[in-house]
């Protein structure tokens, strides 16, 4: 369904050339839920934006159903890491946004939007503005808005990163239910071990500078899952296994940060 073929992307900055994504390849089958996990700064968002068609000038190819795509593609829906609801629109109008873009008539648009608002569990909040909602609710609005465009492939970049652990687990349940229901091909980007194991059929571990794929782990936990799964033994083993791979990368990232701070200090 989605194929990423030898993608590389370098950024040239005053600090030198950063190999943000280095020769990454993978494929996701229709209906599969795959997570990419890696320490912050390893190039996850860059890869996300390349697949979504918002970053150009990279090496390699992105393919949807076998065809190479350039730029944005109607089959791909994106949920961003940052706060991304439109503050001037109500919940319902936010969710209706992609339908408005595709020129659907008002009544049908609102009806469809309502359906997705209910799907993410926000009935009763249709007329509220984002500023009146909690962070978790706003992320659900963003998710519903992307779902409303009915993408065959759903890309999510750390959608729950800013939320507390409980909210994150419960939203994870919600995402899994929706994914089971819509059978969407899903790529979730995360730096959270629990989230990756809780939700995925497969987890890809990324390295830090250069951003390469280090390992691939199939998560063989029974479906349907819910957040209760986090207390099972198998779950713990998967988390430990991924952490073993991730630890080295994460500590390299932290060391890099520290060095940068030290260098900045000695420059002064």
């Amino acid at each position, binding site marked *: 369904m989605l194929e990423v073929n030898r993608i590389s992307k370098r950024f040239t900055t005053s600090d030198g050339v950063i190999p943000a994504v280095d020769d990454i390849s993978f494929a996701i089958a229709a209906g599969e839920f795959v997570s990419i996990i890696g320490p912050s700064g390893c190039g996850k968002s860059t890869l996300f934006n390349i697949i979504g068609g918002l970053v150009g000038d990279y090496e390699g190819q992105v393919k949807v159903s076998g065809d190479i795509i350039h730029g944005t593609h109607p089959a791909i829906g994106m949920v961003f890491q940052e706060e991304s609801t439109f503050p001037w629109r109500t919940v319902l109008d936010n969710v209706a946004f*992609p339908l408005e873009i595709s020129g659907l008539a008002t009544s049908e648009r609102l009806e469809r939007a309502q359906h997705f608002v209910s799907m993410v569990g926000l009935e009763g909040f249709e007329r509220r503005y984002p500023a009146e909602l909690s962070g978790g609710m706003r992320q659900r609005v963003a998710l519903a808005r992307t779902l409303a465009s009915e993408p065959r492939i759903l890309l999510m970049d750390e959608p729950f990163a800013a939320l507390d652990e409980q909210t994150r687990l419960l939203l994870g349940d919600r995402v899994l239910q929706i994914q089971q229901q819509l059978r969407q091909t899903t790529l979730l980007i995360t730096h959270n071990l629990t989230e990756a194991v809780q939700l995925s059929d497969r987890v890809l571990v990324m390295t830090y500078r250069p951003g390469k794929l280090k390992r691939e782990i199939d998560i063989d936990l029974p479906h349907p899952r819910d957040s209760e799964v986090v207390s099972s033994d198998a779950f713990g083993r998967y988390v430990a296994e991924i952490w073993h791979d991730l630890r080295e990368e994460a500590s390299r990232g932290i060391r890099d940060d520290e060095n940068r701070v030290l260098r900045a200090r000695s420059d002064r």
Partner: protein
Amino acid sequence: MNQAHAAAATRSVTMVRTVIIVATLAAWEALALSGLLFRDVVPSLQAICSAVFRLLTAADFYFNLGVTAAEIGVALIIGGAGGLAVGILLGANRFLSRAYESLVYYLGPTPKIIFFPVMIMWFGVGSGSKIAMGAISCFFPIAISAASGIRQIDRVLIRVGLSFRASTWQMATKIYLPAMRGPLVNGMRLGLGVAIIGTLLAQTKLSNRGLGYLIIQAYSTFDMPRMYALIIVLFMLAVAANALIGRLARSRNS
């Protein structure tokens, strides 16, 4: 308790306002009656009130008000569209911004009346030169607000629009404009203020119609009550126009 406090505060504010207004009016009236100043320079309140009444019941006032309003309106449309376009270019393009933005900032506060002779040569002595003065005046605050407005847009909202494959027109109307609304309304407000100043000033300098012309005419025929009446009415209208734009800014959907 808190509510009672707030109500009391509102009451005392109203009280202070009333006292100051009454005191000012009383001082004015005393000055008018004392005859200390040159005759008629400070007309009595009664003379001003009846002048206001005469002004508001005469047809020529409404004709001239219409002329001024139309000139300001057209000036706002032309200067506003120009300011918006230039502001968006400056805000969106770093190169243009480095080349021209400081120029816009420095020209912004300079008095535009110095361009009036040029505008008369270019656009004639009629409405054209008045509109030009108003347009030049409101161009700058609107351009500056639009430039800063476009820069303060949350980048992720733009990426959301692009990810849903919005057209350029949809991006402009559904994302850029609503996201810039606050600074834009503010710019319009400042723009309206200076467009009024620019247009009226031009009317007082060289014109045969418009409220600015009426004021200067009242002045030169030494009809002080009428002049004050015009000033008061004009002042009220300007306050009302500003309040209207202010309400636009505060209304929901912002």
